[in-house]
């Protein structure tokens, strides 16, 4: 799965969110997603991460090994 595909999956799942994908080791595998979404407001961190994970439900089972996540509500 490519970085743009991951980005699209998250964007489709959380309409209106902003997704920035970082590839700190430049290996395309250990990536980090910074997701800004108004819908996170009032939710705890666990719930915010679960919402992002839900958009990548199938991918997380196999393809994505290392996805670091940072969520922001604004």
């Amino acid at each position: 799965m490519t970085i743009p595909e991951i980005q699209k999956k998250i964007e489709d799942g959380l309409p209106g969110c902003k997704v920035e994908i970082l590839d700190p080791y430049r290996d395309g595998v250990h990536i980090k997603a910074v997701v800004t979404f108004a819908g996170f407001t009032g939710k705890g961190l666990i719930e915010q991460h679960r919402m992002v994970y839900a958009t990548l439900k199938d991918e997380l089972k196999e393809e994505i090994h290392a996805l670091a996540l940072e969520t922001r509500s604004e």
Partner: protein
Amino acid sequence: MEQELKDKIESLIKSENVFLFMKGTPEMPQCGFSAGVVTTLKQLGIPFGSFNVLSDMKIREGIKEYTNWPTIPQLYIKGEFVGGHDITIQMAQSGELTKKAG
């Protein structure tokens, strides 16, 4: 989920004040995120128990279902799910983790 598996997971979670499901052992983590959580807990001087999910496929899959959380490591404090790697690091930086574990 089988009751037996659920019981086993719950008894692990409750076996220590702070408990970590991880890949590998604290001495030899087998994944960068597991290593990150171990390092953070050690730096903060928080004692913890751990379970190597790579040693038990049933627990490895079961814990994801039990918590509705798709990845490992998973940290529990006082029987409550705290989060994975990123949340743990964030809480460590804000001082919340030490407070919660105390």
